[in-house]
């Protein structure tokens, strides 16, 4: 971990047991899967819905029909 001075295998917590790390690793994976699915879904929704309609609609002379349709939830 510290190049040339400390090997990774010497940096790990000595009292660590396999079952504990396995448990925490699986827990991390499960929690991250949940966070990721919600997070990415919301970001996708924001991207899909596009820029806010209210501000755009206030502009005269710009055809926003597609925008309003596309922005509907």
């Amino acid at each position: 971990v510290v190049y040339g001075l400390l090997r990774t295998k010497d940096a790990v917590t000595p009292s660590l047991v396999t079952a504990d790390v396995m448990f925490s690793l699986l827990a991390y994976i499960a929690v991250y899967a949940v966070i990721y699915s919600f997070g990415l879904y919301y970001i996708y929704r924001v991207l899909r819905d596009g820029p806010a309609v209210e501000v755009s609609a206030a502009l005269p002379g710009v055809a926003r029909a597609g925008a309003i349709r596309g922005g509907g939830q």
Partner: protein
Amino acid sequence: MDLDPLLLSRIQFAFVIAFHIIFPAFTIGLAAWLATIEGMRLATGDPVYRRVFDFWLKVFALSFGMGVVTGIVMAFQFGTNWSVLSERTGSIQGPLLGYEAFTGFLLEATFFGVMLLGRERVPPWFYFLSCCMVSLGTMVSSFWILCNNSWMQVPLGHVVVDGKFVPDDWWAITTGPIVRVRWPHMLFACFLTTGMSVAATGAWFLLRRTYSEEGRVMLRWGLGLVAVIIPVQMFFGHLNGLYVLKHQPAKFAAIEARWQTQQPASEVLIAIPDESAQRNLFALEVPRLGSFIASGTWDAREIGLDAFPPEDRPPVFVPFWTFRLMVGMGLVMLAVSWFGTWLRFRGRLETTRWYLWATFVSFPPASSPCWRAGSPPRSAASPGWFTACCAPRMR
């Protein structure tokens, strides 16, 4: 390899950091992008910039939250899984991570509130200042992280007391020759990620024939920024390669899949490194190019992995391929952005639909692995990070 705590701890750290770094990289770029676009709005008064800004602000807020949530558990592991590391290097890594929270993260989080809620409450100049402060905060934050990792890659400015690393020269640690090339490489990687994401989103809107005005702004700005930054990034990438060659020759040989010392050395473009047999399968090599890349001359001697005792040899397959993925993605971005610029000067950027598709699909592969390539969190993340960290860590 059996499932011992060491291997599992490595997997755990790599997993967490790989999924964490995506968001910081994206938000560092987004913060700079938002400050830019808010500055354009102030300068031109064009309301399209306001709409683009408000749109990306929402994405920024979500990514920021994801970055924080996925990052918190990373710090815990220093104590739970890597306590010997923390005990021995705490005097150096602790302050660096503390500075990150106190300078970078606080700056970011404070002014982020103004960005989200203060649009109607503060004068425009102060709102713009807040955007700049958030962007500055993200950059400062990345600086401390890069200091930390650079110290682990090339330790300097410390003395060893009772087996513990004690800081001796903070200037060397924070402004050393390594962090000077690695931090810009990371920052530009973040900007490229965001630039490609912005351009791809713009292309997506244009392909859907919706929000074409905003889409055009995103596409042009995104591609323009990428087109300008990518050569600079390649330059810093080269400087990074030189530091690896100088300070971590075994890693350099692994990245190049050079098993034997050669003079002149050839460059392995594509191969399947076979670690058990210590050779390359299906290698495609260019004679003498390896010497040129590493030393600038066509006949220099380049050391191979055979110069190191077997227990000091890093893994080869992962660094070799992640490095090639990184460089490949850089070339994809170069091609997409420069061709887009050419189309723009011809006035055909928005109407060349196959090109819009190419931009759209190049966003996930080109942006994510590439910043990853540049990015250097602590253990080993995504391609570049894997390249950077695999070698010293995974022995």
